[in-house]
């Protein structure tokens, strides 16, 4: 460890070029050399989420391999249960809670090696968790869309579970960011999901129609567009705020 006098800086007596703070100069050079330059996606996420920390958490979620694999397995497992439970609203209403709990477990104290460190940081852990849930569903939904393009077998799971859940989670995150409350965001997400499920059941008399028919895709897209609009509106740059 480099220990210098007077608060960690060289004194003029130590420094031939008296008055030049070599530590400060070197820190500036090192900062430029070592800094990780965020890509366009991370910069956009930081602006939308109003937080470089949340953006980094969002982008690094898939790189934490074991929690990521477990989260993905949970999401697909719940998706399979949902497919089996077609026509049973209770299964549909509980499914998001089960999936979110699975992601929370995967990125929780048991499996996230740096959980204790994260828990001592200022960024609220519930916001980080919400961000991770969005990342898990969004990436898997993107994968599902690609798989659906290749094979019709993945269509039901993708459009019946992954895409709508990604939209609902994005809505929850948007509300959480706008209101600065993860609890408010989660409540909004749950409310949106309940409305989607119950309204679909009421309209058609059977729940399966809401996720297996092409006509149901349009409402999902509308929900997704609304989420995007809320995110853009709620996170628009304002004077005086970084």
């Amino acid at each position: 460890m480099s220990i210098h006098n007077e608060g960690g800086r060289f004194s003029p007596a130590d420094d031939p070029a008296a008055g030049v703070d070599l530590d400060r100069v070197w820190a500036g050079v090192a900062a430029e050399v070592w800094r990780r330059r965020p890509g366009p996606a991370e910069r956009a996420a930081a602006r939308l989420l109003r937080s470089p920390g949340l953006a980094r958490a969002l982008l690094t979620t898939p790189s934490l391999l074991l929690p990521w694999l477990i989260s993905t397995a949970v999401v697909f497992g719940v998706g399979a249960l949902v497919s089996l439970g077609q026509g049973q609203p209770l299964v549909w209403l509980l499914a998001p809670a089960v999936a979110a709990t699975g992601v929370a477990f995967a990125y929780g104290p048991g499996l996230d090696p740096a959980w204790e460190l994260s828990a001592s940081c200022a960024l609220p852990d519930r916001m980080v968790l919400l961000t991770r849930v969005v990342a898990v569903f969004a990436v898997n939904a993107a994968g599902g869309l690609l798989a659906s393009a290749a094979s019709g077998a993945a269509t039901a799971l993708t459009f019946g579970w992954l895409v709508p859940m990604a939209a609902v989670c994005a809505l929850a995150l948007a509300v959480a960011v706008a209101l600065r409350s993860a609890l408010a965001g989660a409540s909004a997400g749950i409310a949106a999901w309940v409305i989607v499920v119950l309204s679909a059941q009421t309209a058609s008399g059977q729940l399966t129609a809401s996720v297996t028919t092409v006509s149901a895709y349009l409402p999902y897209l509308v929900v997704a567009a609304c989420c995007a609009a809320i995110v853009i509106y709620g996170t628009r740059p304002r004077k005086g705020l970084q």
Partner: protein
Amino acid sequence: MRDTRRSFGKNKAVDGVDLQLGTGVFGLLGPNGAGKTSLLRMLATVLPPSSGEIRLLGRDPRGAGARREIRRRLGYLPQNLGYYPSFTVAEFIEYFALLKEMPSAAVPRAVAAAVERVDLGAKARAKLRTLSGGMLRRVGIAQAIVNDPDLLLLDEPTAGLDPEQRVQFRALMRILGERATVIVSTHLVEDVGAACAEVALMSDGKIVFRGTPGELTARGEGHGVGDAPLERGYSAVLSAARSGAVTAS
């Protein structure tokens, strides 16, 4: 902290601790299971107390807003530092700087300064999976100090460091203690003697001694157990606490 307690089932990890600290380096000594780590985790706002009152940096951490403000000014090195093997040293420290909500423009320079302070400049771009245990400990110290904290909590910071690095680390603690409250939990008595202005000794969840290292040394006069004077003081106080003769704080 006032009458702070923390229980896990029937086990009282922290049993009625009163503590008030200002700037400087404060050593927390005690045998394994004495309650040091639980105490530090409560101070780090990771573990809520079962009862009692805690105020940190003038704020009550029970409130979400206050807790967030405390955490911005907090540095914490847990006993078991978990890390992400695929991250580089600089990425890991930067990640936690961002989670601490440091202004993003200040992060690169702060990361560079923290890396240099723990002498890991040559390894800044190395993956964490390639580092030795001592180097990982220094990474942990770097992430703890990256935000220039007002309250720095270090749980066994010198574990895995070689003697030269421990000497340098003690000097770093002394520098940090000039303007921040630094609490160091350790079972290495010599670290406390060299770096701490004040020390507390815990046993069975209670603080059984509080004073300067010199005062702890004085308690060991005439006591036979221990190679160094401070170790004899440590053993003497612990023996007295276990026999119920002394509960001084």
